[in-house]
């Protein structure tokens, strides 16, 4: 079969097998965590966090330390600074996020520019280098990924309460602040895990796009997570093959496939897509609107 060959031929290369495994892992982890980001409105925070990681990544790269370590430290410093600025001034939190994110990113780029002889490839950090994933990278991803998914499962009901109704979390005497930081930590860990595959600039798409698509298709959180993970894996694997055959950069291709799926669902989703609303809305209003709200 030709189709079978289309799928198996690239796997003759070791780097393609590793890339495929990385794409699948990231395709599961990111959308599951991204579900909470979509529901809690943390997209901008996630994007900022990813960019703030740059100085740490460059530093660890230059000293030959594990990439994940520097990224984690950067992420924690950034989250801490954002907290300090927004709490100790009259500025809004998103302003604080913006300041820290742009500043940290500039610092990272400046560091790269002075160390160009070390051949730090900015485009790889920005847009990922899934074809350069090593076996060690895969193991690190697997361990970090299991930690992330473990936390999501273990604290499922607490994260659900925290996301849906933070006041209830306080009324039930859950350790709301600790849980919030745990969730932010899980997001940071997820960003670090997927850095190699999609890079700093595009990791947001991995986190948010499949989760947003899944929200249009589901009515409960566990199915939303599962559909998001399925969409993530599908988009990443499809994107990887397309990038192989059409010779397009792989990270952006995965993101484009994911975006395309979102577009289709946005248009055609049963019940919530805009085409469905336009065509089958004659007379009866969508059940989703709360009829008595002012």
């Amino acid at each position, binding site marked *: 079969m030709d189709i079978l060959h289309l799928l198996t031929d690239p796997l003759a290369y070791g780097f393609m097998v590793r890339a495929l495994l990385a794409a699948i892992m990231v395709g599961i982890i990111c959308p599951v965590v991204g579900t909470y980001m979509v*529901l809690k409105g943390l997209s901008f925070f996630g994007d900022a966090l990813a960019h703030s990681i740059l100085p740490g990544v460059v530093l660890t790269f230059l000293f030959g330390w594990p990439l994940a370590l520097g990224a984690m430290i950067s992420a924690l410093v950034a989250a801490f600074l954002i907290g300090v600025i927004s709490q100790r001034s009259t500025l809004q939190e998103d302003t604080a996020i913006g300041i820290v994110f742009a500043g940290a990113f500039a610092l990272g780029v400046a560091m790269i520019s002075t160390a160009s002889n070390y051949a730090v490839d900015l485009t790889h950090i920005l847009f990922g280098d899934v074809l350069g994933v090593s076996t060690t990278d895969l193991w690190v991803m697997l361990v970090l990924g299991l930690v992330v998914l473990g936390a999501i499962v*273990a*604290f499922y*009901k*607490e994260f*659900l*309460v925290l*996301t*849906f*109704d933070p*006041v*209830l979390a*306080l*009324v*039930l*005497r*859950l*350790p709301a602040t600790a849980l919030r930081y745990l969730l932010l930590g899980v997001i940071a860990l997820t960003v670090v895990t997927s850095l190699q595959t999609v890079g700093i600039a595009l990791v947001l798409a991995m986190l948010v796009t499949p989760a947003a698509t899944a*929200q249009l298709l*589901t*009515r*409960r*959180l566990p*199915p*939303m997570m599962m559909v998001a993970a399925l969409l993530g894996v599908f988009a990443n694997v499809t994107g990887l093959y397309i990038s192989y055959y059409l010779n397009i950069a792989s990270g952006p291709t995965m993101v484009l496939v994911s975006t395309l799926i979102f577009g289709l669902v946005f248009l055609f989703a049963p019940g919530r897509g805009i085409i469905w609303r336009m065509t089958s809305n004659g007379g009866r209003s969508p*059940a*989703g*609107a*709360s*009829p*008595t*709200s*002012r």
Partner: protein
Amino acid sequence: MPLMTRKIPTHDASLPAVELENVTVRYDQTVALDQISFRLNRGDRVAVVGPNGAGKSTLFHAIAGVVRPDQGQVRIYGSVPGGHICVGYVPQRKAIDWNFPVTVTDVVMMGRVGKMGFLRWPARHDREAVHAALAEVGMSAFADRQIGELSGGQQQRVFLARALAQEAELLLMDEPLTGLDMPSQEAILTIIDRLHTHGITVMVASHDLNQAGEQFPLLLLLNHRLVAYGPPARVLTTENLMAAYGGQVHVVHTTEGDLLLTDTCCGGGHDLPLPELAHAAPPVVQTVQHETVESMRPPR
């Protein structure tokens, strides 16, 4: 770690269900609550009334232990609210994302999370508590609906069920009747009546003075400070309402008694100038006799 075993204070029924002593809450420079003191007994039903921005939500947050008073003390059955998980809170409807992917059952089950403890999944008695709570508010048939698919009154009943599943003994409801049609309002008022017979203490924030006075045996009139507290006849006096609503209420002395003009509803407490009200065709005013307001409806 004492995370798994939470100490829940035992309730001494002889102590007041709620007791506030000189509670002051400030946000930055502004005083949201100013030296509030009052006491509720077990099973009391109180409507908290006052203009928009009077601190009704802040009062509830302070009682629920979500906001810590800058001064003074809140006591629930004799101990600070922090240790209690018996305080049920029904948020304003606009505080909830109704597109959130949760069903009615999911929301009511959230009430059980405090009792379950970490790393535990719902057990049979949790599911039974959820079923019972849904039955109590007449929402069993909607258990699998996504919350956005419900009417406003149904949504309110789901959050009531969540507080019941939590086994709340003190229920704080923030504007539960706002924006609902009359049958929905009555359904919720009926449920609140029933809760009272179970010994559950209920506080309801409202800006419908008329309804509050008719439906609740106790009123608490608030405008940052406690203006009046007691039975409606004692609270709804011209003097008290002037004190609470200030520029939003206009008193006109006529031969038949005092005439009280008000715009209680909505809109962030803006002033309606008197001449404009006077020109409005349907009478938006009520005659006040013996300085007691019988009925005050917002302009239709």
